[in-house]
């Protein structure tokens, strides 16, 4: 593709792991430029760029930054970088952190300067030991070089940045769950309001942004919002985007495309469905996104189009499933995931995810009833929209799409009293 790689430009360039190597590619120029700008001007620029959160919800980043109260100069403010990438199918942030740690540090630093936060925590999931080590090394270099610490790049701006390792909990990717976890508690999401922008980490205003979102920031600062806006489908879907494609494709991996590429183009870039098989279904945005059938192959992969099609772009983690895949088993696996990862505090999610997993397992084991499809839909309806955080909504996405888009497969399971697809011992 004739598309310039922006976020992943240093992937494969092991030189960029060091500060000197990163500087050679123009690194930290954006931070230097930012430090000469008014903080509010940076927020305006990011707002103008139309950058939307790359973590899943797609909330405009500049807007988020502008919510941080600035009245009290003595108030502590925090940036928490969400590097708790746990959404099944998602592995783009790991790539960014392991290959270009300074890009993330630079993005975090610019964000901190813009919202006047003096402390940044990079909350990285505990399993990413390599990425954590890479980041730690990069942070050390940045401190030694005066990029972090008292007086960032010889300015009056003071910034401390730390890596905080999680310990294995998907729910800590939810922003308030992450804050709780950062504070040393169980990662149980908080009730909102108050929102983190007002009462966040340690009771102070806090911005929480995804790794990929923050990695976009240096490029917006150095090349301008208009350049950023020139990439993408429309005003609301701008910029380069990492698409992680996995499952039954020839060349799974992370691909950088302008936002709004069609799924067919993406699939072609990844070598198409493997072994020459036919596409059956795909998940466009990580495990939480409702599954789309093969007929949606020409969908534009941006936030709004995917939402209109009854799914979500989420983290743009695409899982491709070929014709041999049992949808019931796949959804049951996702239901098991959500049941395992539900924090257990709110009723619909705790009980509902468990119940859905039990029903789906029963179906897969050939003990389904005719009423199960309706039951699944009803239980999913009681979970979705009623839970404390978004995990409940996420958990019902795949289930609802199974009932609505693949009713024949459920019927086949019930009718034949077994799974019509090849069996495995493990579930």
């Amino acid at each position, binding site marked *: 593709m004739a598309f310039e790689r922006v976020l992943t430009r240093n992937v494969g360039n092991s030189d960029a792991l060091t500060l000197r190597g990163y500087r050679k590619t123009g690194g930290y120029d954006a931070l230097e430029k930012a430090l000469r700008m008014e903080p509010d001007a940076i927020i305006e620029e990011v707002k103008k760029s139309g950058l939307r959160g790359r973590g899943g919800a797609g909330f405009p980043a500049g807007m988020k930054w502008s919510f941080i109260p600035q009245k009290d100069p003595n108030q502590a403010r925090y940036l928490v970088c969400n590097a708790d990438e746990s959404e099944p199918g998602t592995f783009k942030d790991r790539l960014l952190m392991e290959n270009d740690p300074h890009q993330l540090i630079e993005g975090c630093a610019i964000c901190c300067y813009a919202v006047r936060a003096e402390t940044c925590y990079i909350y990285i999931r505990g399993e990413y030991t390599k990425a954590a080590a890479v980041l730690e090394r990069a942070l050390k270099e940045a401190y030694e070089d005066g990029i972090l610490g008292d007086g960032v790049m010889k300015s009056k701006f003071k910034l401390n940045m730390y890596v905080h390792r999680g310990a294995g909990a998907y*729910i800590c990717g939810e922003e308030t769950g992450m804050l709780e976890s950062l504070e040393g508690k169980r990662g149980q999401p908080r009730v909102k309001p108050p929102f983190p922008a007002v009462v966040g980490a340690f009771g102070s205003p806090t911005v929480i942004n995804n790794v990929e979102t923050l990695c976009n920031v240096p490029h917006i600062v150095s090349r301008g919002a208009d350049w950023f806006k020139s990439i993408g489908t429309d005003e609301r879907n701008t910029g380069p985007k990492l698409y992680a494609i996995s499952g039954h494709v020839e060349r799974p991996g992370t691909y950088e495309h302008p936002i709004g590429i069609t799924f067919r183009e993406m699939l072609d870039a990844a070598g198409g469905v493997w072994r020459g098989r036919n596409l059956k279904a795909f998940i466009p945005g990580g495990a939480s996104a409702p599954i789309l059938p093969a007929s949606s192959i020409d969908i534009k992969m941006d936030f709004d189009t995917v939402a209109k099609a009854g799914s979500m772009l989420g983290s743009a983690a695409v899982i491709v499933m070929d014709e041999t895949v049992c949808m019931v088993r796949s959804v049951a696996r996702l239901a098991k995931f959500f049941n395992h990862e539900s924090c257990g505090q709110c009723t619909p999610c705790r009980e509902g995810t468990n119940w859905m997993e039990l029903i789906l397992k029963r179906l897969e084991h050939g003990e389904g009833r005719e009423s199960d499809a309706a039951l699944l839909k009803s239980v999913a309806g009681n979970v979705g929209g009623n839970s404390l955080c978004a995990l409940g909504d996420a958990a019902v996405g795949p289930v609802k799409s199974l009932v609505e888009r693949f009713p024949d497969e459920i019927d086949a399971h019930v009718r034949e009293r077994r799974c019509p697809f090849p069996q495995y011992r493990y579930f």
Partner: protein
Amino acid sequence: MPKLTINDRTVEVPPGTNLIDAGIKVGVQIPHYCYHPRLSVVGQCRMCLVEISQGGKKMPKLQAGCSTPAGEGMEVRTDTPEVREAQKGMMEFFLINHPLDCPICDQAGECGLQDYSFKHGVAYSRFQYEDKRTYPGRERIPLGPNVILNMNRCIQCTRCVRFTHEIAKTGELGFFNRGARTEIGTFPGRELDNPLSTCVVDICPVGALTSTRFRFAERVFYLDKKPSICTGCDVGCNITVEHRRGDIKRYKPRFNPEVNDYWMCDYGRSTFERYKTVPRLRTCRVRDENGTNGSATATGWKEAIDAVHRLLRQRSAEGAVAFLGSGFLTNEEAWLAGRLADIVGTPHRSVPVDPGAGWTIPNLKGGLTGGELAPNRRGAEMLGLRPGLTELDETLGAPKKSNGKEAADTIDHDELLLGDGASRCAVLVVLDSDFGKAAYSPETVERLRRAKTLIVLGWADSPLAKAADVALPVATHTEKDGTFVNLEWRAQRFNAAFPAPAQVRSTVEVLADLLSRFDPAWGDLTAGKVFDRIAAEVPAFAGLQWRTLPATGASLHVPGSEAMMSDTAAQSVPEIS
């Protein structure tokens, strides 16, 4: 002050009030499990989902009433099909994994699940082909000496966890594991043994936490519940006496934000057990006057009162008459006893109390710490039993009969219980046979027995009562009316929860009867009448009225009564006329 409507009823509430509390103000009950007014808001149970519109625009999702502060112009609805559907859904979620063991569950009858499934649930189950989640081996875990956990019944509302962290501040309980396997419990090897531990049973909306003391004692729907005051210490926790036909099964805290808030201590809850374990004095007993060696014989009330009257009249010339009070006396009883002592003309009055361990009952002002194991030492002293009170009240028209002793030389409780005061007494009237531990010590009984005549009133047939020349059976505090004054000088009323046994009268009646023997003008009295006389005569009680005394009590006009006082109270004992 935001003004909003809830189901079309308009309500104005202080800023920050949540929708559940706002609803209560206008009689709209928003069902909830995890929300408790004194615990942090966690929004977990999702039972309180409501529909909110603002400016005619409906919010896309239902909102939790507990975590949504009332906002100006909000239109809240709890009766739309969406809300009903959500409530039904939540009830289903609560019940799918809840055991159907109501017939053997202590909570049945006061169970949040039962109540809400009746109101908001459905009568059938769609959870037919799956197995209920169980916690094998965690069906009857003693969390501590007072609380037993049945994890199968838990609905994970975490009220108990938050209680131990936020109210008791001891943090024994925690929320463990996650997802459908979340459970509550203590760290291995730790016990839930804080002095307030049983409160977690009260706030548990289901039968997961049950009280060791109350476990299997009675079906709650058979219990009669009457408001009362705890006699465990001088905090004066407001309680509900719960009994079946006079057999007390438990005390539960009764909400009073000024005193004990929603809480009470484990010791207080155990105090009713005295009424069952200590033998009861059931009839009047009078010993043959000719010899103290003779055994006391059961008599009727008339003979007994006659005997006391005669003894007080005759023997008071032979030596001192002393009144040994009790911190368990009500204000009314103490006042009448004081008047009786006035008539007899004796300064020898005192109120012994056992010092307490000092449990702190948390409330919004920080908490009250009891220091005495009796509820009313202050009231009893103030109203007539303080040592050295010699001034006779001329208005009572009692015959003046001074025994000529100096006030400083009064025979007080130290003298009686630890010294040899009793041997100087011609008559010693002990107003409560259960005034403290000393009533059960053979040594103390022997000391008190040195009085020529020993008259004992009381509900307990304690060794002291057994040693008495005249023993008069009177009601326990659950069988009579009265008021206590707590350590903050708050007068709190209680009423009989059930009648006293036959042959047992209230101390007020007995003292009124005695007073009438000296002066018929006294006539029949009830606690209420006595209280109103106290209110008329004692400035500290001015303006109070038995009938209108609020359920949460009233502060007395005493210096420092509004302030929190733990033991500085002694220094500011008010002078009464």
